[in-house]
């Protein structure tokens, strides 16, 4: 049993005073920083420029954004920790956040400062060398928020002296990266409609890009761009277009039959009209950015209601799709839908990776790679979103795309995937993507009555249950994105959720819900080092170097969906 978040009960004027005290820069932060290290002064972050962010993948010492770089390969050049030296990796420091609940944050590090977030949107700036706190920001949440899958937060991004966070109550806060003072705080959607934000923003080219979630509540999903300096909204891309019916596809992108009753759907369309207004389409993770071509690539989640297709006829564009839009205008460029007219909650969640890939003719082309809840790796041509290949199944599959029944039908994957929010890591030198998978059976139930849009309330259109007696597990694996074949696979005893870090030291790092955090030989999956944390390690790791030492850092706080042991620690290992 974990300690619940304790919030002092105070009147409104006391709350205002406390918020002001936290947010107004004071001498306290500086004096605390001055006291923190006897050897040298605490780090003060400079202005992290766009040029540095653009070159993030080339940094040997810093981890400048949640997935390493705009291409989102989570591949880092630091190699002091490598296949030979990793056995000597030790815990360097640990920091305890003030919230004991799911940790999904991907730590970022620049100028010797690390930024990490807890559930419920507390943000901490730490001395990356020692783990000492520099400042913290505790977001004051709106009274009524609607969540899907836990109160987690996936991290922050910084640019030009500001650090940006999206909140559960659908705000973006921009803080002074040195002091934690609030510079602007913008409401971008209404939590009472069911909107929430759990992803880290992507900050690029003077814009803060943020995606909205809420497809369990019938929202109309969106990706928004805000001006990084002022917070003013620049453009919005709605993930469900006014014409959402598409091509009436009878198969999904893998080629599996969808068992749709197209005639019934067309009749429903004639009666009800296009369902785009309440069609869902959450965005859960960072878009990748192609700065040269001024394009971004992101994936979109499930339609609303999750399991009942009868009230939303058509393919339900662009739910369960890869989408590319113009960075500067938000205008649609291309898409590829993974699961048309989804009734299995098979969101596209895991963030896209931009990497050169071989097309079917064997020519190298700009590629986009995504690992799905469906349990497959999809490889696209980035120029037009077209699908080049689908991998072999990365998980055991059962009754794929069978229609939910009144009595319940057992399927693999279920609503946890496959691969859900966990980011891939890609090692281009080996031509592989590393993924962590969940192997869980779920019983899917069709609703006995259809319901109309319930005005911002939970809207599922069916139910799912776990299945006693069915095996559960997961894996860490390497899949060759140029052939679609699994190169190696390390089976794990529990469903895996968190994310992967790959390094030039020939290693991949990932954690498990039982608290294990380990390093593996990236060429064959052999375990080379491990540590046992006191809570589930269900977050993506990062790495950086300071004063000749390399650090690997990860959150150990468990996960709400998988029910793994909760904690509050950020762990930094060093060699």
């Amino acid at each position, binding site marked *: 049993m974990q300690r619940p978040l304790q919030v002092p009960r105070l009147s409104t004027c006391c709350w205002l005073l406390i918020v002001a005290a936290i947010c107004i820069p004071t001498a306290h932060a500086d004096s605390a920083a001055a006291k923190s290290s006897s050897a040298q002064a605490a780090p003060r972050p400079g202005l992290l420029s766009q040029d540095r962010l653009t070159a993030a993948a080339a940094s040997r010492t810093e981890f400048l954004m949640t997935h390493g770089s705009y291409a989102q390969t989570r591949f880092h050049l630091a190699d002091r920790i490598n296949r030979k030296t990793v056995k000597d990796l030790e815990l360097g420091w640990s920091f305890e956040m003030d919230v004991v609940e799911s940790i999904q944050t991907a730590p970022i590090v620049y100028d010797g400062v690390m930024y990490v977030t807890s559930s419920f949107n507390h943000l901490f700036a730490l001395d990356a060398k020692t783990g000492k706190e520099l400042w913290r920001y505790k977001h004051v949440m709106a009274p009524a928020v609607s*969540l899907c899958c836990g109160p987690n937060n996936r991290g922050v991004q910084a640019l030009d002296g500001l650090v940006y966070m999206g909140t559960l109550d659908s705000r973006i806060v921009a803080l002074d990266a040195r002091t934690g003072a609030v510079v602007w705080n913008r409401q971008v959607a209404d939590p009472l409609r069911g909107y929430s934000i759990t992803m880290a923003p992507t900050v690029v080219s003077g814009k803060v890009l943020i995606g909205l979630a809420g497809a369990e509540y019938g929202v109309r999903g969106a990706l928004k761009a805000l001006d990084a300096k002022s917070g003013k909204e620049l453009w919005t891309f709605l993930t469900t277009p006014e014409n959402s019916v598409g091509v009436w596809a009878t198969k999904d992108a893998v080629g599996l039959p969808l068992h749709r009753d197209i005639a019934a759907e067309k009749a429903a369309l004639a009666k009800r009209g296009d369902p785009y207004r309440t069609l869902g389409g959450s965005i859960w993770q960072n878009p990748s950015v192609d700065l040269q071509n001024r394009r971004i690539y992101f994936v979109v989640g499930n339609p609303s209601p999750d399991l009942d297709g009868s009230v939303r006829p058509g393919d339900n564009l662009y739910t369960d799709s890869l989408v590319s839009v113009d960075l500067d205008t938000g205008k649609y460029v291309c898409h590829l839908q993974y699961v048309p007219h989804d009734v299995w909650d098979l969101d596209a969640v895991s963030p896209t990776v931009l990497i050169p890939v071989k097309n079917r003719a064997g020519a190298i082309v700009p590629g986009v790679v995504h690992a799905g809840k469906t349990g497959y790796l999809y490889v696209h041509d980035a120029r037009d979103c077209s699908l080049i290949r689908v991998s072999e199944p990365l998980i055991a599959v059962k009754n794929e795309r069978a229609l939910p029944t009144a009595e319940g039908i057992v399927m693999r994957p279920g609503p946890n995937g496959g691969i859900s929010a966990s980011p891939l890591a890609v090692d281009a030198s080996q031509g592989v993507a590393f993924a962590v998978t969940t192997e869980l059976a779920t019983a899917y139930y069709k609703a006995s009555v259809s319901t109309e849009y319930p005005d911002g309330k939970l809207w599922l259109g069916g139910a799912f249950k776990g299945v006693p007696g069915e095996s559960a597990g997961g894996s860490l694996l390497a899949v060759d994105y140029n052939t679609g074949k699994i190169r190696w696979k390390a089976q794990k005893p529990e469903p895996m959720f968190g994310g992967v870090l790959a390094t030039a030291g020939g290693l991949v790092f990932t954690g498990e819900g039982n608290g294990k955090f380990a390093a593996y030989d990236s060429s064959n999956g052999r375990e080379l080092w491990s540590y046992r944390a006191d809570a589930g390690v269900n977050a993506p790791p990062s790495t950086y170097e300071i004063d000749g030492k390399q650090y690997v850092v990860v959150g150990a706080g468990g996960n709400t969906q998988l029910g793994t042991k909760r904690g509050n620690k950020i762990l930094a290992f060093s060699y």
Partner: protein
Amino acid sequence: MTFSLRPVETLTVLFVLVAALQAHPAHAQDVKQQVAACVACHPLSNVPASSVNPIIWGQNEGYVYLQLRDFKRAARASTSDAVMHALTQPMTDAQMLAIARYVSAQPWPKSQDQKTPPTDPLFQRGALVAAYGVCGHCHFNNWQGYSTTPRLRGQTAAYLTTTMNEFRNGKRGNSPGMADLLRVQSAEDVAAMAAYLSNID
């Protein structure tokens, strides 16, 4: 003990409560006065497990606000909701938010006569059903939930059983998602979950 009034008494209570609520705008002092009336049906302490009126003190703020709003607009409109529907008619949105804030800040009363200890097979069955029912997705943190998702831990067994069954039979209509999820649970599993959740500390 279930709360029941003769019609003339009901009308009197309603008149007094409605008058009290209309008299004052939202204000720290006034909120206290307004919610004092709630104690008649929602006691601050020693709530019997057989009480069909739920424990509200210490319930999550977003959930309390939404229920007040839904009572007022008759999104919760079963026959047993008539009193709450009447009571919420004069409430403004600001008053509902203030009431929700105040209510959520109070200590959660213990529910009496906890008859199902963790060793009881019914308790254990309830724990298993709730785990496989993915209830902890939203009612996380030892069934505390958060914001618009209510706390279940230590709620009265009678209220939990009644409510879960009202979601199943359609009598409670203000969360279709909850209705969908509970319709795939049997009456026996509902009773087990109620026994489990009401008996957790």
